[in-house]
């Protein structure tokens, strides 16, 4: 029997497939299609201390094998989540990861504190959202910025802390090392790559925000490369994401060094993608005599 279980920072996941933040809401919409307990975990929609309305529309543009989004962290605020969504989520029998963003270090700390008082299993610190003007990515693009926010948040986070990294940087290894040194329990990458599309008839950007975050299969090779570089630089677990749409992609990402994976944009064209990926990994393990999925992590044999 293939053992799909993985352990990240002391939290046990029944399989290594987690839904990516912002692509799965708070789970209710997909729960109409399949039980959420089939998932290893859910990284919940990015939250802020107070409600955010997000950016004006259009917020979505299609790209070759991918998409841009400029949602801009629309969310009801952390208290509304705790009151309205968390009790229901807690009954779904899967690992819950709260993805939090702020416009200043104090906001991040207050959120980490508040989430730590709840039944959420882990915190994912989003220092990489390209769609909000202040904060977010401002912290994530330099080792010093990333370290400064993790250092403070660490004091308030009583749950395992994942730091979600931006790909819009020159040296991902340096940033991964910096957050590890400040006490991050894991890193997840990649968030979206900054992109732009223009309607040549109107000469207007398709997104009202002008620019947005690129995700989907188009970013997969970039994500594999960055996960590989980050995994080689740190000893904490790496969660790999960016463009994963099938079991083979997840396996490739794990061979690059990811201990678990997240699936995002693929769910928009195939809502069952995370379930199929988990089943496909299990099938592949059986076919290849892999007993424990953790055996394959980082087993790429670089030239």
């Amino acid at each position: 029997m293939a053992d799909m279980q993985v352990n990240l920072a002391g939290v046990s996941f029944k399989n290594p497939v987690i839904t990516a933040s912002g692509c799965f809401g708070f789970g209710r919409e997909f729960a109409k299609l399949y039980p959420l307990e089939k998932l290893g975990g859910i990284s919940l929609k990015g939250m802020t201390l107070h409600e955010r309305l997000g950016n004006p529309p259009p917020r979505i543009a299609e790209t070759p094998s991918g998409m841009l989004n400029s949602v801009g962290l629309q969310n009801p605020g952390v208290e509304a989540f705790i009151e309205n969504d968390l009790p229901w989520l807690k009954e779904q029998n899967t690992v819950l990861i709260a993805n939090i963003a702020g416009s200043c270090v104090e906001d991040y700390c207050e959120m980490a504190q508040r989430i730590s008082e709840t039944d959420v299993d882990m915190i994912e610190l989003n220092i990489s959202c390209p769609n909000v003007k202040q904060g977010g990515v401002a912290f994530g693009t330099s080792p010093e910025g990333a370290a400064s926010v993790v250092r403070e948040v660490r004091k308030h986070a009583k749950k395992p802390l994942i730091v979600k990294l931006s790909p819009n940087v020159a040296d991902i290894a340096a940033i991964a090392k910096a957050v590890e040194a400040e006490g991050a329990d894991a890193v997840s990458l990649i968030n979206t790559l900054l992109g732009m599309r223009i309607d040549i008839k109107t000469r207007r950007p398709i997104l009202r925000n002008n620019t947005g975050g690129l995700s989907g299969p188009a970013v997969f090779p970039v994500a594999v490369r960055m996960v590989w570089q980050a995994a080689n630089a740190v000893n904490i677990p790496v969660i790999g994401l960016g463009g994963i749409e099938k079991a083979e992609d997840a396996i490739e990402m794990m061979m690059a060094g990811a201990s678990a994976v997240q699936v995002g944009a693929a769910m928009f064209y195939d809502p069952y993608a995370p379930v199929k990926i988990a089943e496909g990994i299990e099938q592949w393990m059986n076919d290849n005599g892999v007993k424990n999925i953790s055996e394959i992590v980082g087993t790429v044999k670089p030239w």
Partner: protein
Amino acid sequence: MSYLQKQFPILDTKCLAKDIHELVVSCPEIASQAIAGQFVNIRTSHTLRRPISICGIDAEKGTIRLVVKAQGKGTDEICRMRPGDTIDLLGPLGNGFDVKNSNLKAVVVGGGIGAAPMYGVASVYGKNCAAILGFRDSADVILEKDFQALGCELLICTDNGTRGFHGFTTQMLENYLKENHVDIIHTCGPKPMMKGVKDIAEKYGVRCQISMDERMACGIGACLGCACKTKKEDGSSTYSHVCKHGPVFEAQQLDFD
């Protein structure tokens, strides 16, 4: 409300006008619960699914009709599908029109491809309904016989006067409201037209429902991509999501700026 995602067989296809095709899809699970104004999200070879309104529903036969205008690579692909092919649908999605009281006197206003969802609405009201449909040119007119078969009063408008009333649907609507009692207006079409319909409905004090159009990704309310500015009860602005809170909104909820 619930939805599902599956491959369904296409039973029939037909060209209705230049670049506009109709597909009849066998999907009993969707047909049995769909309401006029709801939509399906269709997978093509491109990354994002394409939202398409459910034009007609035959719950008995277990079929729905889709009317699609080829205006880009995804809709072009859908228009090239033929009987015997299968189509990957996620649906039925969103909230349809309020057609619970078919005894009301209704007017449906459809602009261009917006005529398609209006057919499903008109088929609920039948004779109690007037359909005001606007097209650029006589060659673009679609679903004429279908609306006629419902027994509703059909008022066709063309921008260039090559068929029916020479002018916009909004002018026709205003003329109609001056002379007739109307309980409810349902509309779908280009934004400027829908804004015009909203203003006229307000002027004449008639309830009005509008089907909105926005770029989508998930289609179910999870990605928050399809935002549309709406007014809360206290008058403040917020963003609703066309796929989940719409596509049909009460006119007064909408904030066309």
